[in-house]
């Protein structure tokens, strides 16, 4: 091969490699940017006065005096809205029955939107669900509701060949000629004064429990559940995995039995995680009954079984990569095998073992399938450390799925879904980062 061809080959190889790395980085960016921007929206957003009311009443956060002043400030505008509604209700009585029926259904949807925006309308029965006790807490949601108030959504289905087309009709037209017609421009004009939006930095999203099935509040229960499950899995899998790796590398002889064990281990590493979930249910809960039903313990054990092969592999690789000369030196100085393993081989292999462990920890934190049947509940209270043996827990991975697909108000709480994804990704990234730092630190200590 002549030198020109070689150079071309080298360059095209470099180009292909760089392109694939760039594509990967781009794909990552496409995935991560919306998650980060959406997730940050859960913590950093324009919060309305309703958010501050909720925080003060439910979590005792915030300044009561400032809030009272703001309530006093917004109240006149709200009273004007309620006065208009009352006035229209009185006007309604004077209408003839057909017209009255028509308008009362129209006004009830206006009332719904108003109470969604501002909180319960005075005179209506006190709502039971928390979600109806407060108005809109986020300004961008308020703007959406305002649009719903101003326009009626209609569908044009005149052409049966095509899908219906959405179009908007100003709601004020429906009330033309009545006293309520003035309500719409009034609200449009004064919504900010009624809700007093402020830039809000809501750390509580990460540290507070959720209220009314994640419609308000934070995701602490999920974060804590995820940590419990991942750390619990680690408590079982890490010691077992390291001991198994020591057995494989230092004690096992090459025979049929150990090669079966090895291939079993590799096979386990490739088993789909849902299979582990079903196994966990069938074995840990139904057969040996570690708990009566789903529990953190059962979930941790299932996750532990799932990550065990990875930990064994990583630890095995780490132990095998310890130079044989260390072992020789130790044996040559009259150390026993066990002491050689504990004082020479394991310390030297530690960076690799820990890296494998923490990467598995990240995986355990992110897995959904193994905990569906064994540990996760969609809505639950924050559990204490004493409850891990018996109680199930909400967990980020499962609740991300649940909130996005099965929640009754999935569309209303997009920010919570994004926030949870961001929290999960951050936990996994932080774990991996700490693995890298720890590894660097230990290797530096070993190498000098």
């Amino acid at each position, binding site marked *: 091969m002549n030198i020109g061809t070689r150079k071309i080959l080298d360059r095209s190889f470099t180009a292909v490699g760089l392109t694939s790395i760039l594509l990967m980085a781009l794909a990552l960016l496409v995935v991560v940017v919306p998650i980060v921007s959406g997730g940050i929206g859960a913590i950093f957003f324009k919060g309305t006065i309703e958010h501050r009311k909720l925080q003060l009443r439910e979590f005792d956060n915030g300044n009561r005096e400032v809030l009272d002043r703001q309530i006093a400030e917004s109240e006149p505008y709200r009273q004007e809205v309620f006065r208009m509604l009352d006035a229209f209700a009185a006007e309604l009585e004077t209408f003839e029955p057909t017209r009255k029926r028509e308008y009362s259904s129209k006004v009830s949807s206006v009332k719904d939107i108003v109470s969604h925006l501002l909180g319960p309308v005075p005179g209506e029965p006190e709502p039971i669900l928390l979600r109806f006790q407060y108005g809109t807490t986020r300004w961008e949601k308020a703007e959406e509701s305002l649009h719903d108030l101003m326009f009626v959504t209609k569908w044009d289905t005149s052409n049966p060949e095509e899908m219906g087309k959405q179009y908007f009709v100003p709601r004020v037209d429906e009330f033309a000629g009545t006293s309520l017609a003035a309500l719409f421009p009034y609200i449009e004009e004064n919504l900010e004064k009624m809700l007093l939006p402020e830039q809000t930095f809501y750390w509580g999203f990460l540290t507070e429990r959720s209220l009314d099935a994640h419609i308000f509040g934070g995701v602490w229960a999920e974060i804590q559940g995820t940590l419990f499950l991942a750390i619990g899995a680690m408590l079982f899998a890490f010691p077992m995995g390291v001991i198994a790796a020591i057995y494989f590398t230092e004690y096992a002889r090459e025979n049929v039995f150990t090669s079966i064990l090895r291939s079993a281990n590799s096979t386990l590493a490739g088993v789909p995680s849902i299979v582990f979930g079903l196994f966990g249910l069938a074995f840990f809960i139904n057969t040996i009954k570690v708990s009566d039903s789903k529990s953190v313990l059962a979930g941790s054990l299932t996750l532990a079984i799932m990550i065990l092969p990875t930990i064994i592999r990583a630890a095995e690789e780490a132990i095998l990569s310890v*130079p044989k000369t260390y072992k*020789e*030196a130790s044996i*040559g*100085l*009259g150390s026993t095998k066990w*002491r050689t393993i504990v004082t020479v081989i394991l310390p030297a292999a530690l960076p690799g073992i820990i890296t494998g462990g923490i990467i598995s920890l990240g995986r355990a934190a992110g897995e959904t399938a193994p905990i569906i049947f064994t540990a996760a509940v969609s809505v639950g209270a924050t559990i204490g450390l004493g409850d891990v043996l018996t109680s199930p827990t909400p967990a980020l991975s499962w609740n991300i799925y649940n909130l996005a697909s099965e929640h009754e108000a999935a569309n209303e709480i997009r920010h919570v879904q994004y926030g949870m994804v961001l929290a999960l990704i951050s936990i996994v990234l932080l774990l991996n980062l700490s693995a890298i730092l720890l590894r660097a630190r230990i290797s530096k200590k*070993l190498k*000098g």
Partner: protein
Amino acid sequence: MQEVLNKKNVEKRILAPRESRDTIGRINVSNPRMICRDVNVYYGDKQAIRNVSIDIGCNEVLAMIGPSGCGKSTFLRCLNRMNDTIDNCRVTGEILFDDKDIYDSSIDVVPLRAQIGMVFQKPNPFPKTIYENVAWAPRIHGIIESKSDADEIVETSLQKAGLWGEVKDRLDQPGNGLSGGQQQRLCIARAIAVSPEVILMDEPCSALDPIATAKIEDLIEELRTQYTIAIVTHSMQQASRVSQRTAFFHLGDLIEVGATEAIFTKPSHQLTEDYITGRYG
């Protein structure tokens, strides 16, 4: 032309079918520290060492030389049972140390390896500090009871290994940070920290530069007064410089043993002569 012919003859000799070859020269000494008789080593079916019998005298340096793959390292590793760590390795025959066969089932290899220390081809300090490298073995053998014991052993061992002056101010630094020659002397210090009686050295200078090699050779000369040393080496100059007796191995046989001077000036066996004159190696 003559050279080519010679070379061919040599090759023929080496490749010729093997029959058991008896050792030439005196294998026993007046005050032996270790006595090896009819030692055979097998790796699986393959025999690596054949009927080797030799004494290692007190306070002498025994050099083992021979071409690559002749079994000299294998034999050295038999002397403190390092071959135990190789799965399919089998040793027969007798190796007496303190009148006991070290391969006897009643022998505990742990104290044995403390008495018969070993220094390896490649410097292999532990990934620990200089201090810990030296103090580690005495500690696991229970020789050290207090911090002052440890300090003392570390200092004397490093002094004996001629390293104290160079490292006394940085004992808490990692052993891997030293130069190759210093690392090898650290390994020697580590080996003598448990007060062995015999030190086995497996080509201790093959990874070192000439100056570091000279230092190690001087050190071997000094250590001889207190320890019995068996050294495997590829360098015939080194063997002639440091040893009192030399053993020449060839394809698993101990071909010739004798006083170093005699071996290098008038070898009795043709193979020995060919080897030391550099016809093959």
